[in-house]
């Protein structure tokens, strides 16, 4: 699996809202950065809770990538995030860049760069409240 394939696999799982498939791509101690979540997430349990939060509050969320450059361990890509929150009347369309680092076949860091200033955060709410399912997915006892 090349690093670009990892990125595409994550993008696809995210768009399908497939938490299990997305989490299978991450290393146990991975770092996940997404400004709309309001904080950096560490490890599978936090990342699963963060993704679950995104899926809970959105009708849809897709990452579209237009250009990517890759080295052995890092891929940097440009694209857009298109999403619609249940609470909002209109969907979001935000330019973004993604940096993904891998070790072996596992994602060790996934950093999303976008400007969240104009948007109320997805994390406006209990980010870690619904961690039960996420904990089960990541195999961590609650």
């Amino acid at each position, binding site marked *: 699996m090349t690093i670009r394939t990892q990125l595409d696999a994550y993008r696809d799982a995210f768009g399908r809202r497939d938490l299990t498939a997305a989490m299978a791509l991450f290393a146990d101690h991975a770092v996940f950065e997404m400004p709309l979540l309001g904080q950096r997430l560490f490890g599978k349990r936090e990342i699963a809770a963060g993704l679950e939060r995104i899926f809970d509050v959105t009708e849809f969320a897709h990452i579209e990538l237009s250009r990517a*450059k890759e080295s052995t361990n890092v891929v940097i890509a440009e694209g857009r995030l298109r999403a619609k929150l249940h609470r909002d009347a209109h969907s979001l369309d935000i330019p973004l860049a993604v940096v993904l680092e891998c070790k072996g076949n596992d994602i060790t860091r996934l950093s999303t760069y976008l400007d969240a*200033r104009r948007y109320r955060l997805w994390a406006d709410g209990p980010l870690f409240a619904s961690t039960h399912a996420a904990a089960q997915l990541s195999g961590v006892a609650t």
Partner: protein
Amino acid sequence: MSGVTAGDLLRAYCGAFKRRAVAEITELFADDAVLDLPLFDARVVGKAAIAAEIDTAIRGLKNIRVVLEHTIETGSEAFAEGVFYADHIGIHPLVDGTPIRLDFRFVAAVTANDGKIVRWTEYFDTKPLKPRERTHLYPISRRSAYWEGTVKAGVSEFMVYNHTYMPLVFHHSPAEEYVALTERVTLWDVGGERQTQIKGPDAVRFAQFLTTRDLSKLKVGSCKYTLACDPLGKILCDPVLLYPWENVVWLSHGDVDLTLWAAGAAIHSGFQVEIDEPDVQPVQVQGPKSLDMLRGLVEASLDELGFYKCVATKVADIDAVISRTGWSGGLGFEIYPLSSVHAMALWDALVEAGRPFGLMVTGPNVFRAVEVGVTDTAYYSNSGMNPYEAGHGRLVDLEKGEFIGRQALRTVAAEGARRKTVGLFIDGELPNLEWYWPLKDSHGGTGEVRWSVHSFKLNRNIGIAIVDSALQPGDEVQITHQAGIARAIVTQVPFVD
């Protein structure tokens, strides 16, 4: 074909930014290059526009550092992940001392052609870098009629002025706002700037009694910068007096209950006047492009409106008074719609008319005001300062007849003022001026720093202070502020032409 790659250009840009080398950065771009930066409101197109934006950005920053962590390059493109570090100029630390910094992680995507950058796009989150959404409000103070417009423009902080929230801080940097004011045009919500209306056959005579300048030759369409003093000769405020119609005088005043004062003074005074605060909430359009921007929007001919003149007319088809006055020390106008009912329609029309001129919605710009020596009520309030101490002796006409404070001011004029207003060049990093800083001179005299800002023109900290009248330019004083002690050198006001 040039041997310079996109990666070379990316690294050169970051290196030059660190050195604040604007000309060097500019030369990296092609004439038709585009720049996408989340800190800007829109894509910047063309080398000249990019140079101007980068120059403004760098004027507002110091101690810049750029660290590139990953750079990946293929063909004509290079992508990089890195970290930007810088100190702001003109933004004070939080009360607990936490600096407001411009530090962020970013991704940059660069496209090159023939050895020049044709596209520079950055991705980062500005939410932690800019002021948060507006502060909470309390209903005991009034919102201005332009509230909706200022929220849309990104207001974050207000001061309470004449019992009204006046927007001061928006999401642009002080350097960006300074450049907009001095090179383009700015729109200010000064709905908190209230009008004390004096109406009736004795309107001018009563204004003559209430203020310090001679109004005996006042003509309709005139304005005057004047002072209102108490019976002890202390300054209450420094209003702009407008005479828009026969038998109607407005005193457009700073943060003081001048209408109550005037109403009290009018009772049993024998003057045939009615005192009121009409529903007139002004805006200021200030900057060198203000005339060009307003020309098509104002029914009266603005080209013929002289400095400190006013006219009742229509602005964007809304009944208003417009005066060639303002708080910028340069070209600018104040627009007074005759009712707040159409205030937002006026605001929207101004924003639209200003778009081709690069209009920026800002608060009153204290950085520029101090440079040009334009003070306001906040400079005098609670100081016991008289006009001579404020450097406004020219605004007092002791021979014009009776007015409030005349006897006391006659004594001051005869004996000489014990204090005077001076400029200061102040050393070191300064906190926000939240109260007036005490100062001492080398002769044991005392005084107060009553304004202090960074001067973007002079690139140093400046202040305006009231000091012992014996002090002269070049004398040294010691200031005590909330972050320590600073040395300052006395100079003259204004600091710039």
